[in-house]
C-alpha cells in the first residue's frame, strides 16, 4: 500500500494511469446510475444519431450505445482482470519454481517458456477458440491466460534467479527453511513490482485479445463487451451508414484501458528501477554569485596544478540534499602524488568526480571551484569540457565489472580515447597501445579480446592503461587496484610512479589502504564525513598523526613493518550526510573530545606546522563559521 502511494507520488504518469483505470472501473460499477436503459433492450428507434435521449445514439437494432458501453465495461474488465490474474499466477508460479529449484526443473521450465513465447499467440487463440466455440466467457479467459503467461514468467524467472543468489535468500536456504516459506516470505515481496508489471501487461494482452476474438465473431457475441460491440457494428455496416461513433466509442475505451495499464506499468518501472543516467549534461553546478576570483588571496608559488577551493557537492534526493563533500579546499602540485583516504562513504569518490566535473545527476556541485592549471572546470561548457577531458586529466574509476563496453574490442576502446583527442595515425595508435599494455603488464594480444574475456584485475589494468594514454597532467585514481593481488598491485603502482616521475604528472590516489598511501604519497589528506580533517606530508602524517580520527585510522591498519595483524576498527558510525553538522563531525566517536566545545563549535582546519593542517580543537582553538546554509 505504501509502495503504491510512493509510486503515485513520484510518477505523474502512473498517477494518470491509475486515475484512468479508476474512471473506467467506476464506469463499470456505476453502470445502472449512468444510464436508465438496459444494454440489450431494443425498444428504441434504429440508427439514431448521438445526442438528446441517447448520448451515443442507437444501434441497428435500436439498442442504446451508451448503455452498451457502460455495461460492456463490466465484462471487458472482468475478462481483462481475470485472464491477467490467471496468466500472472501461472507465470509467477513457474518463474519462481524455476528459480528456486534450479537445475533440471529450471531447464524444463525455461524451455517451456521459450516455446510459448514464440508460438504466435493470436493465431493459436483463434484456432483454439474456433474449436472451443460455445464455451462462453470462461473458456475465452482460460485460452487467453494459457497463451499469455510466458512473457511474465520469463522476466520473473531471470529476476528470481538473480534474487536467489543474494545473501538473504541464500541464508534462508542454508538455515533449512521450507521452500514455500522462502518463496513466499523471502522472494515474493521483492518481486512484487515485477509481478504487478506482468499482471498489467497480460491484462492488456487479454483485453486486446478478447476484442480481436469478438471482432472475428468468436466467443460469445450475445454478451455485451467492447469487443462484441465492434463486432455488431461491423456486421451491421455501421461505417457504411456513417455511424462511426458506434465503432469509435468502444475501440477508444479499449485503447484508453490499455493505455491506463501501460502507464501504471511505466510508473512502476520508473520508481522501482531508479537509474543513474550518465548523460551529456555535465555536472550541475549551483554556485551562488561569489566575489570575483581575484579577491581570493593570491596563491603562493609554485602554483598548484589542481586547486579545489571551498568545494561543496553531493546529491539531490527526494528526501532532501545529501552533502557528501563539505567545503573542501585542497591542492595538488605539479608532479605530486596526493593520497586521499577515509572510511567508506565519507565522500572520496564524490570529491573526485565533482572536482573533475564528472558527477552525474542526481549529483550536483553546490558551491566552490576546481581549477586545473588555472582553468575553472566548473565553469566550462560541455564542448570545452570534452576537449580537456582525458587530455588534461583522466580518471580511473572505482572497480567495476562494467567499465568497458562489452560489445567493442579492447583495442577500439584504447584507440578511441586517443582518437577523440587528435591522434589519428594507425601506426602511432597501435604502437602506443602496445606500449601502454606493456606498462601495465598485459599481453598485447589482449588488445583483440572483448571485455568479457578479461579477468577483473586485467580490466582494471586496461583502464589504467587508457588513463595514461594521453599522458595527462593529472590522473585521478579511485581505488584503482582493489581487484588486484598485492604483488601485482605494488608492481603496477611502481610503474605508475615511474611514469609520474618521468613525465611529471600529478596523481590523486584514493584508497582505504593507508599503509600503501604512506609508502607512495608525497602528501596525504584524510577525509571524514565529507570534510578534509587533516592534511600533511606523508611521512609526517605517519610519524605524527594529529587528528584523533587519523590516529584511530592508523591504528586500524597494520603497520608498515612488523606482523600484519588486524587491529580493531573504530567504534561508532559517522553522522548522516543529509544533515547539517555544525560541530566536530567526529566528536561522537572521539576518545579525546572536549565536552562543551567539540559538540558546540566546529573546528576550522589550520596549519599547525609547515604543510600540516588539522581541524581539531586539541590542536587549535580556531572555530569555523558555517559558510553554508541549506540551499
Amino acid at each position: 500500500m505504501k509502495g503504491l502511494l510512493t509510486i503515485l507520488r513520484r510518477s505523474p504518469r502512473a498517477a494518470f494511469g491509475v486515475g484512468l483505470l479508476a474512471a473506467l472501473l467506476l464506469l463499470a460499477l456505476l453502470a445502472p446510475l449512468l444510464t436508465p436503459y438496459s444494454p440489450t433492450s431494443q425498444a428504441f428507434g434504429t440508427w439514431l444519431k448521438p445526442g438528446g435521449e441517447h448520448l451515443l445514439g442507437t444501434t441497428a437494432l435500436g439498442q442504446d450505445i451508451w448503455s452498451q458501453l457502460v455495461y460492456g465495461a463490466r465484462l471487458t474488465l472482468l475478462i481483462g482482470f481475470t485472464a491477467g490474474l490467471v496468466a500472472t499466477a501461472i507465470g509467477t508460479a513457474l518463474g519462481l519454481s524455476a528459480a528456486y529449484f534450479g537445475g533440471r526443473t529450471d531447464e524444463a521450465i525455461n524451455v517451456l517458456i521459450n516455446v510459448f513465447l514464440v508460438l504466435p499467440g493470436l493465431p493459436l487463440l483463434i484456432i483454439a477458440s474456433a474449436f472451443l466455440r460455445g464455451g462462453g466467457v470462461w473458456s475465452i479467459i482460460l485460452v487467453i491466460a494459457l497463451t499469455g503467461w510466458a512473457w511474465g514468467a520469463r522476466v520473473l524467472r531471470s529476476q528470481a534467479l538473480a534474487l536467489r543468489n543474494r545473501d538473504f535468500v541464500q541464508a534462508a536456504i542454508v538455515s533449512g527453511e521450507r521452500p514455500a516459506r522462502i518463496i513466499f516470505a523471502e522472494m515474493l515481496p521483492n518481486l512484487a513490482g515485477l509481478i504487478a508489471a506482468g499482471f498489467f501487461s497480460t491484462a492488456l494482452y487479454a483485453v486486446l485479445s478478447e476484442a480481436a476474438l469478438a471482432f472475428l465473431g468468436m466467443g460469445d457475441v450475445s454478451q455485451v463487451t467492447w469487443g462484441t460491440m465492434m463486432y455488431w457494428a461491423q456486421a451491421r455496416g455501421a461505417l457504411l451508414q456513417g455511424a462511426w461513433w458506434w465503432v469509435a466509442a468502444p475501440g477508444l475505451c479499449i485503447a484508453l484501458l490499455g493505455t491506463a495499464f501501460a502507464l501504471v506499468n511505466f510508473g512502476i518501472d520508473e520508481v522501482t528501477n531508479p537509474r543513474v543516467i550518465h548523460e551529456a549534461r555535465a555536472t550541475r553546478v549551483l554556485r551562488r554569485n561569489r566575489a570575483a576570483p581575484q579577491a581570493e588571496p593570491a596563491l603562493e608559488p609554485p602554483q598548484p596544478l589542481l586547486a579545489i577551493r571551498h568545494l561543496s557537492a553531493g546529491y539531490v534526493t527526494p528526501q532532501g540534499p545529501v552533502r557528501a563533500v563539505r567545503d573542501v579546499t585542497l591542492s595538488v602540485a605539479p608532479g605530486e602524488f596526493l593520497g586521499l583516504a577515509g572510511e567508506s562513504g565519507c565522500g572520496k569518490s564524490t570529491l573526485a568526480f565533482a572536482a573533475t566535473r564528472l558527477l552525474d545527476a542526481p549529483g550536483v556541485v553546490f558551491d566552490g571551484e576546481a581549477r586545473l592549471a588555472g582553468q575553472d572546470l566548473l565553469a566550462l561548457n560541455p564542448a570545452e569540457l570534452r576537449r580537456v577531458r582525458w587530455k588534461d586529466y583522466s580518471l580511473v574509476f572505482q572497480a567495476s565489472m562494467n567499465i568497458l563496453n562489452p560489445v567493442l574490442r579492447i583495442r577500439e576502446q584504447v584507440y578511441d580515447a586517443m582518437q577523440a583527442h587528435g591522434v589519428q595515425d594507425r601506426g602511432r595508435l597501435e604502437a602506443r597501445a602496445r606500449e601502454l599494455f606493456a606498462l601495465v603488464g598485459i599481453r598485447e594480444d589482449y588488445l583483440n579480446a572483448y571485455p568479457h574475456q578479461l579477468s577483473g584485475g586485467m580490466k582494471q589494468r586496461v583502464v589504467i592503461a587508457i588513463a595514461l594514454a594521453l599522458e595527462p597532467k593529472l590522473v585521478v585514481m579511485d581505488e584503482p587496484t582493489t581487484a588486484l593481488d598485492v604483488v601485482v598491485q605494488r608492481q603496477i603502482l611502481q610503474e605508475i610512479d615511474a611514469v609520474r616521475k618521468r613525465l611529471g604528472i600529478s596523481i590523486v590516489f584514493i584508497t582505504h589502504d593507508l599503509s600503501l598511501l604512506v609508502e607512495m604519497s608525497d602528501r596525504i589528506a584524510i577525509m571524514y564525513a565529507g570534510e578534509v580533517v587533516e592534511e600533511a606530508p606523508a611521512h609526517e602524517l605517519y610519524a605524527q598523526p594529529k587528528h584523533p580520527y587519523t590516529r584511530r585510522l592508523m591504528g586500524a591498519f597494520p603497520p608498515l613493518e612488523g606482523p600484519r595483524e588486524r587491529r580493531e576498527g573504530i567504534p561508532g558510525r559517522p553522522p548522516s550526510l543529509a544533515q547539517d553538522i555544525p560541530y566536530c563531525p567526529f566528536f561522537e566517536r572521539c576518545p579525546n573530545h572536549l565536552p562543551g566545545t567539540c559538540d558546540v563549535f566546529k573546528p576550522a582546519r589550520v596549519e599547525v606546522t609547515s604543510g600540516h593542517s588539522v581541524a581539531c580543537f586539541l590542536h587549535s582553538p580556531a572555530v569555523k563559521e558555517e559558510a553554508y546554509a541549506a540551499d
Partner: protein
Amino acid sequence: MPYLLRKFLILLLTLWVAVTLNFILPRLVPGDPVGAMIARYQGKLDPSAVDALKLAYGLNDQGGLLGQYFAYLGKLLRGDFGRSIGQFPTPVSEIIAQAAPWTIGLIGVCTVLAVVLGSALGLYSAWRRGQPLADALPPLALFLNSMPYFWFALLLLYLLAFKSSVFPLSGGLDPFLTPHSPTWWVSLLRHATLPALTIIVTSAGGWLITMRNNVMGVMSEDYIAFARAKGLSEGRILNRYVLRNALLPSFTAFGMALGFVVGGSILTETVFSYPGLGLQLYNAVTNLDYPLMQAIFLYIALAVLIANFVVDALYALLDPRVRDGKAA
C-alpha cells in the same frame, strides 16, 4: 551447448508443440468436427468432401489415438495438408501458396519499417530526455500500442477510403493489370498503404517503448560514464556505445513481438479484405474450414519460428558474449 544449436532445438520443439496442439485441439471439441461441419453445410457438402474430411481427421482409421497421431505426422512430413472444405476440392497447400506472398510482403516490409521507426524514436526519446517532444513520445506510444489493430484499421478505412476515396476500400490489386507494369505497381502500393499504415502505427509504439527502456538501461551503465570521461564525441558515444548495446535486447524482444504483429495483421487483412493468409484464416474460421485453418496456423507458426531463428543468429553475430556462450 552452442548457442545456435540450442536455439535450433528449441525451434524444433516449438514446432512439435504447434503440430501437436493442432492434432489435439480438434479432438477436444465436444462432438466431432466433421459432424459439425456437415450440419453447418446442411447437405450442401459434396459427398467426396465428407470423405476427404473423415480422411483428414483419421476418423475412418481403425487405429487408436496414437496411430492417428503418427499417421498425421507422416502426412505433414509429406507436405499433405488435405483439401479445403470451404473451397473444395482445392488442396490447402495451394491456397496457402497463393495467399502467403501477400502476407509475407505486407508484414515483412511493415515490421522492418515499424522496428526502424519505433527504435529511432525510442532512441531519440531516451537520448533527449527532458525535452518536451522526447517526453511526450512515450505516453503517445503507449496509447497507439494499446489500440486494437482492427479498430484503427476501421477508422482509417472510414476516413481515407470511404469518406474521401484516397485509397481503395478493399483488396490487394485492381483486376486486369499487366503484372509488374507501372500501373500494376501503383495499384499494389495504393492497396497496401492503409493496411501498412495500420500495422506500422499500431506496432511502432511498442518498439519505441522497448528501445527507450533499453537505451535508458545502457545509459546507466558504467561504460557510458567512462566513455564520457574519455571525452568521446556525442556521435561516437551514441553509435558505438549506446546504440550497439541497446539494440541487443531489442533482438530478444523482436521474436516475442513478431507473433503479436502477425496476429494483428490477420485482423488488419480482414478489415481491408487484403488477400493474404489472415483473410483466408478468417474465412476458414467462419466457414468451419478446419483443414485450411489448421494448415494456416502451422504455416504462420513455422514462418514466425524461422524469422525468430534468423534474428537469434543475427544476435549472436552482434554480441561477442553470446558467441562465446557466456550469456543466453
